């Protein structure tokens, strides 16, 4: 298993993660090594084995739809890096 620089860049794009050229080179080697060690999983026969998503013996957890206190607009915006007119501010998405 060898990850090319192009593959690393593609994965970083999917994750919206900026990487420097040095990081791309380093990650291409490290991820290739790590993924190589994961090949061990291909040895196992998993036919008819159901996947486990979590270890709890619970299914379909519901709760009553109760009205409870929620955060105020001021609280929600308290940690915002930028805000304007009681909204989170982002760069223009549509030009």
């Amino acid at each position, binding site marked *: 298993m060898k*990850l090319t620089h192009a593959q*690393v860049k593609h*994965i*970083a794009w*999917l*994750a*919206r*993660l*900026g*990487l*420097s050229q040095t*990081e791309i080179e380093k*990650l291409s080697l*490290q*991820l290739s*090594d*790590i*993924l190589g*060690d*994961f090949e*061990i*999983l*291909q040895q*196992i026969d*998993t036919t008819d*084995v*159901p*996947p*486990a*998503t*979590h*270890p*709890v*013996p*619970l299914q379909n*957890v519901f*709760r009553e739809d109760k009205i409870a206190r929620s*955060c105020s607009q001021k*609280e*929600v915006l*308290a*940690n*915002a*890096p*930028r805000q304007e007119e009681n909204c*989170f501010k*982002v*760069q*223009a*998405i549509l030009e």
Partner: protein
Amino acid sequence: MNQLYQLSIHQAHELLKQRKISSLELTQSVLGRIAEVENKIQACITITEDTALRGAKEADSCIARGDIAPLTGIPALIKDVICTQGVRTTCGSKMLENFVPLYDATVIQKLKTQKAVIVGKANMDEFAMGSSTENSAFFPTYNPWDLDCVPGGSSGGSAAAVAADEPTYALGSDTGGSIRQPAGFCNTVGLKPTYGRVSRFGLVAFASSLDQIGPLTKNVTDCALVMNTISGYDPRDSTSVPYPIPDYTRQLIPELKGLKIGVPREYLVTGMQAGVRRALEIAINKLQELGAEIDWELSLPSTKYALAVYYILAPSEASANLARYDGVKYGFSEQNAPNVIQATEKTRQFGFGPEVKRRIMLGTYALSAGYYDAYYLRAQKVRTLIKQEFDQAFKKYDALVTPTSPTVAFKIGEKLEDPMQMYLSDVCTLPINIAGVPAISIPAGFAHDLPVGMQIIGKPFHEETILHIAFAYEQATDWHKRKPGIQ
């Protein structure tokens, strides 16, 4: 006992109840100890001196009214991945360096209901990803037993602080060993509860199907007392389980007659230090002397797949959980970019450290089109096999015993450039999170002058049994009383 900061929870509780000491005196002693050793240990990211002293006075007025619970007035340090209202919660990351939560995690609410005193927030590997606390974006924590060594991780700040007698106890979180491995490296007690036992509400998510909050304490009785407080169903965590909570101190008895304990041989091989093996064998013989029946021939053959399963599942879940850090709602934000997508990329490039990036990349790869079946889905299936092996073993045994880590604490910097070597440090603890069962690490001897931890693994929701075995062992030994002697 010379100083109040040296007290354990149950000792402090007795003295508080008898009004021989006040919470204020205890808290001042703990804060003084923190001031004395923090320049060497660096276990705390934030110290909340003022609120702690205020909390101690409130606790004292409760105690004066005769209103005292087991944790009332006793100082705790909280891993900085657990949200504390009004007190910044950084997750050891530049991304959340200035993040101040709007609410308390459920476990913090429970501590506050008992008027526990919170003295600060503990250092950790960034977003709990790591085994040495070297991945903290702020500074490393040093092992009080040898300042050239790591304290383990990711709850390294919590473990080192308790070992150095800074807080009376600490809370940590454990996704693949992050409470138990540092507890083992620092000679403290650390418990990872059964998945679903303790609410995760307010725990910053790393890998949601593996994360649990648990205590790091000076002894097993204290561990049971903290478990009594933090356990239980929480409607705000849909994976918390609505089972009744026993009194975890009820089974703390000093003998082990009638208990069957298995030692899975797969945990005694790869890369294990001879000194660790020797210490563990002596410890297991002690369990036998105490009346337990030991089987050294247990085999859990899927153990060899656990590392790969873990490092596919945990990064996959992390890559999804960490997608929320986009520089818009809270946290670090880098907007010097031509458009919104590049601003997001830059925010994440400069906000996250190398290990977090590595795991986001691994997880994104394992979940991406064309690789999902080969990696993520296959890992989930092998997770079923690993869990089934534990289920089978627990039909025959009441508990399993293994080393907590194959080695004692390693040198700072030793594994930083070799991720796979770092990951192997958790090889004995990862399978436990995969199966979702509870496990405790307790002090069980020394090798190369550094502490060795013994891991005791229990059936789902049978924390009582592993606390019982841990307690009996602790009563028969005095490893937990050894202190690093840091001044």
